[in-house]
């Protein structure tokens, strides 16, 4: 039910955005995310853009993983 698909906004008309999913185009509503712009990578769920994808977040995730790769506490294994 919570499945959401990432795509790229290629055009906007009013509250309606055309989203490109790697070659397949579909329309989605911007009612839940009106500030999305052409060129943004977005998450689309059931016909609505629900979030803009942060393209720099890969580095953040890597940093979070990095933190678990070192020590944990004094009783570390």
């Amino acid at each position, binding site marked *: 039910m*919570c499945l959401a698909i990432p795509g790229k906004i290629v055009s906007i008309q009013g509250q309606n955005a055309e989203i490109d999913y790697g070659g397949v185009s579909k329309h989605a509503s911007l009612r839940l995310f*009106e500030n999305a712009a052409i060129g943004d990578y977005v998450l689309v769920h059931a016909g609505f853009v629900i979030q803009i994808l942060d393209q720099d977040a890969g580095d953040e995730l890597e940093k979070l*993983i990095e933190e*678990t790769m070192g020590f944990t506490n004094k009783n570390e294994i």
Partner: protein
Amino acid sequence: MKYKIEDIKKRIAELAKDMGQITIMEVCGTHTASIHKYGIQELLPDNIRLVSGPGCPVCVTAQKDIAAALSIADREDVIFTCFGDMMRVPCGDDSLYSLYESGKDVRIVTSPMDALHIAQDHPDRQTVYFGIGFETTAPHTAALIEAADECGIQNLSILSAHKTMPQAIKKLLKGGSGIDALICPGHVASIIGAQAFSFVPDELMLPAAVAGFEAYDIMAALLCIVHMLRSGERKCVNMYPRAVTEYGNREALSLLYKVFEPCDAVWRGLGEIQGSGLGIKERYWEFDAAHRFDLPVKKIEEAKGCICARILSGKSRPTDCVNFGGACTPDRPLGACMVSSEGSCAAYYWYKK
């Protein structure tokens, strides 16, 4: 990425060594499906067990709500619309699919807005949309109601069985649940924000991580959780930063609470949970199917032997059920958890059987 899944797998095993049994729950049907599809359990050491909680919206929809849906869909003047995975949820001897087979006008939609277009195309009939799902999906239904109001549509109403996640998690994991940590639902968090799950460490004293839905995302979240269990930290860490912000999607939340307000709701498996449902506000009652139609209050018994209720609260596994894979299969489901591909039983059936 610097670290491969193999590195994460190895580090989880290192951290979990000698830690005793660890039970980690996820509460999102899409996580359930991904975990089984990618074989995540098999990548973990023997002492880490993953269990599914009440995260499949189809599964947790109460029998009384299904009965209400069926009574509306059975009417000659109604076009009943719903997501596809609601169609085969059994309710006594019937389901929405059996009504469709008997000639009733039941239609599958992929977005709530489809219901608006159907209502506009059929002004002489009543169109009803069955709203189920958590915070990810409920704002869409709010957008449907807002649009119907703006367009002055008279022949559209919504049967809302929408629910919100935090109260159910609190009820389930409050003291003595046997659950050691929580994987938080990534797309619910996209809407309500990662901070909305801070009650998990703060009130329930359990570590939590918000996770995405690829194998890498889930493994990274599990690593973060096992690291916290090992170090004694109790935090909710956002391990899905590309789609989840601290405070979520304020526009969606603002629309959601413009149209809906919290109400008590019955969950299959968990019973009634105070403030865990979304009822349509009085301002929009003209679009509330519960006000437009007489709904039944009859009690429908669950199928004999069905243990969906125990499975949804993480107390039993699908394979513990006598009906699993025999009397109950995805083609002929007896219980709700075998219907949707996100249900625990269906996921077990497709990937473990």
